């Protein structure tokens, strides 16, 4: 039972994953002047634009709005940038047939690279908290746990889609479209309390809904996330993880052998 899980997470191939992540980072930022600094720059800039539009033009009434946007936008950027790499298995099809490189290792390395970017963009969040004259309270200790669950949720979704992409090339166009809907169906720019009460229950149908609301609760409101919310968040993460694992078991060799 443990064997497949070790293989799935490449726990016996840590040096391989380390090297693949290192390669990703080097290839991505070599010859770029700002380098890793871009991971701080991009969410900060897009948060600035959203803040201008939603605060001054649309006049959204949310306390500490800039921090509210940032706290949702940073994990969302992690989610979308991961899914933007959904071609990773298909694009390396030829390579996978020539070297003993398991396909899930490629996906995991890609995932970890993006997660590292997420972690590196957290200083912005802390600066923003301090700029808003908010305290750094104990509730922030929930952040690493939530980020970890986010990591599993995103990785599983990414794995499902990158394996699926080998068979259905439409995903390349479909995924960005769904993500565009997702951006507005997930509490990022607005607060969960702004959803009319009778529809608020529907948010549980969005795998990312309560997860992103929890980021607001932890970072902006700085409160403890209710257990029922944790339940829904963990539930979605578990469902997606199991789906990803089942799909991996089914097509792990087929994606390499496909003619």
């Amino acid at each position: 039972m443990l064997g497949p899980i070790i293989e799935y997470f490449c726990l016996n191939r840590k040096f391989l994953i380390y090297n693949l992540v290192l390669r990703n980072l080097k290839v991505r930022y070599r010859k770029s002047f700002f380098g890793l600094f871009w991971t701080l720059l991009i969410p900060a800039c897009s948060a600035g634009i959203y803040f201008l539009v939603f605060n001054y033009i649309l006049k959204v009434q949310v306390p500490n709005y800039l921090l509210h946007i940032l706290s949702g936008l940073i994990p969302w950027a992690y989610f979308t940038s991961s899914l933007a790499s959904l071609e990773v298995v298909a694009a390396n099809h030829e390579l996978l047939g020539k070297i003993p490189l398991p396909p899930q290792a490629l996906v995991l390395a890609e995932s970890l690279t993006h997660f590292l970017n997420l972690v590196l963009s957290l200083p912005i969040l802390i600066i923003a908290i301090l700029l808003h004259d908010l305290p750094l309270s104990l509730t922030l200790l929930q952040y690493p746990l939530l980020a970890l669950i986010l990591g599993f949720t995103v990785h599983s979704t990414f794995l499902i889609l990158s394996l699926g992409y080998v068979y259905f090339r439409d995903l390349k166009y479909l995924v960005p479209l769904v993500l565009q809907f997702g951006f507005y169906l997930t509490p990022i720019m607005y607060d969960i309390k702004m959803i009319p009460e009778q529809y608020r229950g529907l948010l549980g149908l969005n795998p990312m809904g309560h997860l992103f609301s929890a980021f607001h609760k932890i970072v902006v409101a700085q409160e403890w996330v209710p257990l029922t919310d944790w339940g829904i968040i963990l539930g979605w993460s578990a469902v997606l993880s199991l789906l990803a694992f089942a799909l991996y078991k089914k097509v792990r060799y087929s994606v390499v052998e496909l003619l």
Partner: protein
Amino acid sequence: MKTAAIEFHHLTKEFELWHDRPYSIKSIVAQLSTFNFKFGRREKLRILENIDLTVYKGDFVGIMGRNGVGKSTLLRLISNIYRPTSGSVVTHGRLIPLLELGAGFAAELTGYENIFLNASILGFSKKEAELKAQAIVDFSELKEKINQPVRAYSSGMLVRLGFSIAAHFNADLLLFDEILAVGDVGFQEKCLQKIHELHASGKTIVLVTHDPQQVAKYCNRCIVIEKQGVVFDGAPSEGIGVYSRMF
């Protein structure tokens, strides 16, 4: 008493070849609108059938056969890149497959950085990579070019680096797939000499090749594959005869 290094048990390998398979939602919808619910035709291509074979520790096996007969597939099955359709293949000891030189190199990284990346793909640890890095650089004769990005390498230089990496790690089993066709004559000879040394030090070697001279000079066993199976398994001199009579 000979101990087994690679064991094939009733191994059969088929590939699925899809005809007219829809790859997009548009084509699925288009097809469904004509009330046709059968998606594509699946053709089974049988490449290898019921292979029973044991390679022993210390063997130097030369595998010969026509193009497309399944020699590379056989190596990929040994390397756990492909999975048998039925039957099994078991390997004993650490394995280095060299199916294509330069595969797995990251073009933007330097030759030296690629040593570590390649080592990790082959399943070796950081410590082992650090220990062998200098010997690999020396053997490859790339000198200061080792610090250039690999995208600037010629195919001959890729061969040098790729082969040097594979030859220096401590494996029990080495697989080579027609890789020595590239590279200048001097280095080709050096590679074969190195393979010969590895064999002499007790390692098991499997070499896919079309060159009868290589088989005659280095191998102690020759396997000829034809019609999805092993048609000859024995002394190199006879195997070469079987192989050349096929044309």
